[in-house]
């Protein structure tokens, strides 16, 4: 618990997290205002149209993953892994604390990101006179799925950061995977691509794309990804010397 408090303080005490949050807020607002205002009415009518549009808050997952990655990589980049390890020689405890901190910060990113997109998007659609056809259950699934998915991306980020301690390497790997590799795989081989973490977490938000997994299966798949990365990251952390 002490180490978790320390990890949460690390997140709060630099401008990195605030920078990521500001970036998320700006991006979420920009996208929501532009798309909800400028999209033709014909693209806003079905439940899938509306769910897809209002699910943009899940972009918070990228920011949560980056924040998660930083939990390890910035320690290696600036050498604070040495005092951190001296004050807590249990690598397991360090990992579990960072993993938990990654999930918690991801949760906050998710609430802010999806909260903004959903509330402002819905407001603009109503002002434009769009009839909201999303059911209450669908809205709940979207909100819970986006927030929980983002929290899990915080965990995935921690795992990636533990596996690739080099900050530039980890960030590039993560972005290249999320924006390039997965989209290519899903585009060409959707039956495989839907099991990859980005598309599995998309499925958690409801019917935004036909080829995705059912939401509950998608949730399990993302949890599995975060746990597999965590197990590999923890094993490497224990094996590696702190130099």
């Amino acid at each position, binding site marked *: 618990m*002490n*180490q978790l*408090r*320390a990890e949460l*303080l*690390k997140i709060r*005490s*630099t*401008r*990195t997290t605030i920078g990521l949050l500001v970036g998320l807020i700006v991006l979420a607002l920009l996208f929501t205002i532009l798309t909800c205002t400028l999209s033709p009415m014909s693209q806003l009518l079905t439940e899938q149209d509306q769910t897809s549009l209002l699910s943009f808050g899940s972009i918070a997952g990228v920011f949560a993953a980056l924040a998660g990655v930083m939990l390890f990589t*910035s320690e290696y980049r*600036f*050498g*604070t892994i*040495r*005092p*951190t*390890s*001296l*004050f*807590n*020689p*249990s690598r397991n405890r360090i990992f579990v604390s960072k993993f938990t901190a990654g999930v918690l910060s991801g949760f906050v990113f998710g609430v802010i990101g999806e909260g903004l997109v959903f509330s402002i998007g819905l407001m603009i659609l109503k002002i434009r006179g769009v009839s909201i056809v999303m059911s209450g259950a669908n809205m709940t699934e979207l909100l819970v799925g986006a927030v929980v998915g983002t929290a899990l991306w915080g965990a995935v980020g921690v795992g990636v950061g533990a596996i690739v301690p080099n900050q530039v390497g980890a960030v590039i790997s993560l972005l290249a995977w999320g924006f390039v590799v997965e989209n290519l795989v899903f585009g060409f081989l959707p039956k495989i691509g839907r099991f990859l973490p980005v598309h599995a977490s998309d499925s958690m938000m409801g019917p935004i794309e036909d080829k995705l997994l059912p939401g509950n299966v998608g949730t399990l798949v993302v949890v599995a990804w975060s746990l597999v990365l965590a197990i590999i990251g923890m094993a490497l952390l224990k094996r590696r*010397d*702190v*130099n």
Partner: protein
Amino acid sequence: MSSVVQCDSLSKRYGDVLAVDDLTFAIEAGTITGFLGPNGAGKSTTLRMLLGLAKPSAGHATIFGSPYDQLETPALRIGAVLEATDFHPGRSGRDHLRMLSQAVGLPDARVDEVLTLVELQGAARRRVKGYSLGMRQRLGLAAALLGNPDLLVLDEPANGLDPEGVRWLRDFLRAFASGGRTVLISSHVLAEVAQTVDQILIINHGRLVAESTLDDLTARVGGAVRVQSPELDKLAETLGREGIVTSRSNDHALLAKGTTRERVGDLALAAGIAIYELVTEGSSLEEVFLDLTSEEVPQ
């Protein structure tokens, strides 16, 4: 009394390079030990193994009788500074200390105490990127002191410090050790620690090449004990009987080779010979150091 620090046959191999080679030494409580050697001699690797950051390839290292990572909250007994740059530049000095103190359940009040101790209270809330090297060294020391430790392990703490900073550090370490606490301080510059340490360990190519007090070491490697006495002939004879070779200096003092001040003084006392002057001289410490660390170690 058991040793505070104990290394037994400690080795560390990185690929083909044997960074630390069968190192065995012990450090007793209440001493300031200089851990010396040229850059790349294996000092930092040894300290990392001692502090549980690196796993030994062979042998083992213990502090207070246990491996570092098996001690209960080791930061409350051992303070260590390994690099002067181990800070996030965007974090304030105070927050750096708070994140460490929270990890071991110490209150923020302790953070403020150590900041005052290292005279950084005025800069505590500033981001570390605005700190001078001397301030960073002191912040590192503050982190090491958070747990009010009985042992301080410092890796090259005087690196980059100006003379005033070196003196501050020396005074600080003396005050710290005066209460019976122990310091292990590494350096590649003998002069930085010569006025601070009680005993020294010198390593070269990962191997221990000397372990002794400064006086002993100086005497052993070609230095001499210079003695002034009204009865120099009698003293020379007394020392000669103990196998100590003596000679006369230009100013008619007696130079005793291969021995220590304490031994000469004790022998003179036993023989009832008055001593007017008793100093270790000859090779400078730097010469001794260079002599020991320039030797090629057989592969």
